[in-house]
């Protein structure tokens, strides 16, 4: 299954907190962003609000393969 998650580039982050402030679920997006970690919170809706609001282009949505079927795993 292909889905998306938010990834961050810490060199662009100035820790302003706009991302966390605008997250509808109150996820502390900034703490991920400044450390360059993907938003791995299982509650993340991938709504893109943080991506759109970041004034520095720190965040972006990236497609990811989160669940791989056993068949696919076997086939490598």
């Amino acid at each position, binding site marked *: 299954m292909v889905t998306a998650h938010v990834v961050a580039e810490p060199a*662009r*982050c*100035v*820790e*302003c*907190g*706009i991302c966390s402030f605008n997250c509808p679920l109150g996820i502390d997006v*900034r703490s991920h962003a400044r450390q360059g970690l993907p938003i791995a919170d299982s509650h993340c809706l991938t709504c893109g609000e943080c991506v759109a609001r970041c004034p520095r*282009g720190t965040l972006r949505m990236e497609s990811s393969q989160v669940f791989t079927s056993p068949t696919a795993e076997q086939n490598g």
Partner: protein
Amino acid sequence: MPRRYVLVGNGPASVSAAIAIRQRDSTGDILIVGDEKPGFYSRPGLAYLLTGTVPEGHLFSRPDSEYRRYGLRRQVGRVTRLDPKGHRVELASGQTIDYDRLLLAPGARALRPNVPGMDLDGVVTLDNLDDARRILKLARRAKTAVVVGGGITALELAEGLAAQGVATHYLLRKDRYWSNVLDAAESSLVESRLEAEGIRLHRQADLAAVVGKGGRVRAVELKDGRRLDAGIVAVAIGIQPRIELAQAAGLTCDRGVWTDEYMRTSDPDVYAAGDVAEVYDPASGRRVLDSLWSIAIDQGRTAGANMAGAGEPYPRGIPFNVTRIGGLTTTLIGAVGNGREDGDLVALARGDSESWRQQADAFTVEAEADVSRVRLLVGERTLLGAVVMGDQKLSRPLQDLICEQVDILPLRQRLLSSPKDLPDLVTSAWRDTRARR
């Protein structure tokens, strides 16, 4: 006995140094001494506090729990004296603190123009959270404001004041905004956006005096005799690295505190990082000042590692910043300037790099669409700099191509002969580079 580390300043350089120390020295005693009472906050975020984009509470990005997690002690205090021989600092309270390794990262302070009236209530700069709070308080009762200066901070002030409903005038000493970094079309784009936000620009407007009544600002007078009413005068003509401690202690200083490529000052047990540091760059043979958040973090990390004995040089990259000027998201990378002086700035500004002012030995290629604009400095084999305004699709590709000094020879001729294809050429070169990784 555990090694004693004292870090002066509680900004990004200090905190990243502290974490780097802890990663190499699990038992060292790490004390951060900062002169601001509030905890660690985002200094660039003050611009968004002024515009009302983010509330103050959200600016605090490193809670006390993070200090505890790394076993860092934090003390509020102003260091007034450094004794390198005695390995000791003295605080305004009279307390003395001994150290084995010291980091100087006190940052920089705003310069003020040498004109009468600068001491009046209502003359403001934007150095720290207290300043932002003061500006917001003043904006509640002021009807008009005058902004003097250049670079990013002047616009943060102008746009912040305008967003607070204050009729804002912005004085430009010459004819256009940030003339040594932006080209004429880019300045014009920013200026038109400011005017659309209701900010009134005055060109050839040189401040002569700030006039007050009862100790409060009432107006500004210009050298040509014009007079503008003002309840607030906001100043951003550049910053001065806070070198006083180092200078009085006999450390080598010029514009900032000199460091070698290991972030070490002229005293082997004293390091410097962030806005205060004038850092030797072995590649160019020059000493450079930067005032950028990410560079402060990188310099702090190198200083901290070396304070704990790592012996690693500072990997100076190509400075870049992404910011909003005139409401337009703007990426600045590498040497994009013209090597001339700026009329509105007498020194480096915040969010600024000396590298941007340099004039690259390069051809310029430009592409424009609506309110978006890309300017590219094309060197012999690499891209040397770029300004991306508005649409940021090319920001990341250009950051990678320039900072990684990717060989662009295969597309150079097409770039130069067909500027309209710039977006496609850059995107495809970037994709090729990523595919080869």
